């Protein structure tokens, strides 16, 4: 691993460990949200940065995981086991939807996943028996340690960032493996990859499923933290926001989605505050509108001026310029 990468990793890990000791409740609460977003973004970066396909359904899998965990808990399944249930449901749905969908590639695949996201939202709204419909559901318990319920920000913080850490390690290992190389080959030239014997659809399906599992687990953690879920959290806009996090931070790096999730969440929070100050009569609507405009502009600017994302650009700037591709995929190269 490059020295720059190591320094960046160390900084992030130190910040995550140090934060609780500041006893800043507001920062801690924000960091919980960042962690949950980061986990879903990490999964998505596998599709965007490694397989080279943009998926617009990450919020659907996030919501799927949330509802699956909630439903399982309400049926008496232990919340920790319910996390596994969420992952399994994510796997099953992604596999069933992905097998026909992944015949497509490029913009066509993106559009198909957009459709999936929209359909999922309709199901969340309409399947009232399971999801509680538009008004949502609550009262499905919480993660626990022995008999002690893990309520509040600090336990949620520890759980979320442990999951991010494990997720990042897993993603790094995958990128350095034969499967990861096959995925990168598909992104570089699908024709050549297939001609060399790479089973393109199978590899993409694996990536799609894994990406969905990250989102489903993140969604389940969110459900237990929030204690109440409704379809408004799992919209098409949210799927776009996950893409913004990944692209903003850097899709081909492991740190990128984490940094992207942090920046995204901070900016979104600031925009909400701004909307409240400017339009007290309709703060919520104003905040949503501001976010769409601001993140649209940010996405365009990043793609135009920093296509490798913030972390990608930092690595390029500080020493990763060597003509090498690194196991964890932080190649700085943009040909031409």
């Amino acid at each position, binding site marked *: 691993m490059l020295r720059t990468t190591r320094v960046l990793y160390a900084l992030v890990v130190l910040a995550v460990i140090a934060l609780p000791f500041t006893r800043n409740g507001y920062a801690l609460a924000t960091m919980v949200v960042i962690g949950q977003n980061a986990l879903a973004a990490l999964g998505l970066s596998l599709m965007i940065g490694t397989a080279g396909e943009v998926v617009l359904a990450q919020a659907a899998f996030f919501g799927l995981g949330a509802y699956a965990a909630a439903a399982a808990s309400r049926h008496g399944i232990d919340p920790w086991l319910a996390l596994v249930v969420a992952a399994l449901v994510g796997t099953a749905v992604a596999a069933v939807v992905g097998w026909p969908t992944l015949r497509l590639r490029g913009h066509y695949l993106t559009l198909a996943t957009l459709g999936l996201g929209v359909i999922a939202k309709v199901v969340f709204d309409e399947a009232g028996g399971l999801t509680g419909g538009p008004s949502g559901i609550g009262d499905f318990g919480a993660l626990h340690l022995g008999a002690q319920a893990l309520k509040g920000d600090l336990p949620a913080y520890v759980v979320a960032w442990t999951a991010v850490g494990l997720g990042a390690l897993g993603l790094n290992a995958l990128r350095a493996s*034969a499967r990861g*190389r*096959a995925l*990168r*080959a598909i*992104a*570089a*030239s699908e*024709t*050549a*990859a*297939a*001609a*060399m*014997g*790479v*089973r*393109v659809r199978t590899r993409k399906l694996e990536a799609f499923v894994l990406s969905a599992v990250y989102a489903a687990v993140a969604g389940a953690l969110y459900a237990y933290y929030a204690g109440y879920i409704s379809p408004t959290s799992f919209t098409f806009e949210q799927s776009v926001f996950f893409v913004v996090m990944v692209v903003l931070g850097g899709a081909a790096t492991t740190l990128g989605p984490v940094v992207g999730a942090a920046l995204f969440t901070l900016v979104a929070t600031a925009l909400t505050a701004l909307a409240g100050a400017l339009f007290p009569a309709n703060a919520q609507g104003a905040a949503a509108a501001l976010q769409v405009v601001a993140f649209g502009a940010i996405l365009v600017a990043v793609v135009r001026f920093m296509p490798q994302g913030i972390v990608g650009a930092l690595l390029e700037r500080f020493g990763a310029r060597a*003509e*090498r*591709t690194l196991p964890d995929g932080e*190649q700085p*190269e943009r*040909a*031409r």
Partner: protein
Amino acid sequence: MSASATRAEPLLEVERVRKRFGGVVAVDDLSFAVERGAFVSIIGPNGAGKTSVFNLITGAYPLDAGDVRLAGRSLRGRGPSAISHAGIARTFQTLQVFGTMSARENVLVPLEARERGRTARARADELLALVGLDGDADRLASALSFGRQRLLELARALAAEPRLLLLDEPTSGLSRAETRAFVDVLARVRADGTTILMIEHDVRTVMAVSDRVIVMHRGSKLAEGAPAEVQRDPRVIVAYLGEPAAVPPPRGKLAPSGAPADLLVVQGLVARRGAVRALDGVDLSVREGEILAVVGPNGAGKSTLLGTLAGWFAPSAGRVVLAGRDVTGLPAERAVRAGIVLVPERRQMFDALSVARNLELGAYAHGGAAPAELERVFALFPRLRERRAQRAGTLSGGEQQMVAIARGLLARPRVLLLDEPSLGLAPQVVAEIFAALARVNADGTTVVVVEQNARAAFAVADRVALLERGRITAGGSAAALAADPAITAAYLG
């Protein structure tokens, strides 16, 4: 099936294969076989359907009719990945290396798709050494030179452990020296017992390496036999090489009386492409009414020179003056209006548009083509009149080149720049294109043509400039320079 029967049957059998795209029959009832251990080449004029045959064998296109068998087993209905696992590997005419990965990782991909486990890395390094890329293992594939990328594709194909290796124009774009090196590597590959089927334009290479040659024409097999036989076959000579008279006669055009004015003057032009200083102080003048050929080996900076003149790339130093007006660094859309028109490499058709629409777009900068102007280009290229309504993407390479030149003329050039007009075209078509170029010039258009195919360029040019490593190293009349050993030396290194 008995073991002896297996040994007797050919490794690859292509049987009555047919493929059509819309109204165009790309491959028409084609049959041939390749024996184990053989080296068979497919030649044929552009658009004969050669690459389509590879795409059918490897499953990239489904068959419309017929069958392809490997060692007696039908490959019908199988996809590219399954066919790769059955033992067929290929390289691509237009390079398809995994540019975002290192050379070693490129070779690892097929090995790992076969679960070679721990031996994969050692085998990858072995294959890189076989093609002479051992020093480049950790370099990014996209950072390798064109010639090395071709070698990398070969190593990658070998890593798929093929029983049959398909090579699609493997030496296209390589210098003579690189071609020789490539052929040496092929000899080593063959010594290992790999059966090879190759598409190739370079007849010299084909004759040197093949046991047998298949000649394709219009989607079917025109002839088949030993290289020397095929070479003498009169049908083949006509179809592939063209009638001797198709080569334009030497022009013998003398410089116009009096000192011809310099139309375009280039002084100390410097331009970078990424980290490379592609133009390193180019000085050049183009005279009114002449054809100037810029020749030089691959990577000399020829395309960068034309691209910089046409405003595609910004120069970092130097001056360009067109008819007394400073046009240095004008962006492309303004360079066109000033009269510098580029016919780009690989033609850059608007594939989905008709020929007529492509031509109209050439006249975009001045609000459309006058009927008389269209008449003029149709007089130069009568075939385009017939094909006016056809989609440009479905034309043959030679016809596309004609559209590209006609489109350039409709932009009303003071000086017409052409980048590699002969690229990928069969000799007969090349002669046709260059004859057309001579007519364009006779009409009064000043022409600068960049060519890898020096012989074709010399035949039509008034003057020739030799570009090497970003500088003009020799220049003069075409007649004088044709005998200059500097030209041969530039290509052969």
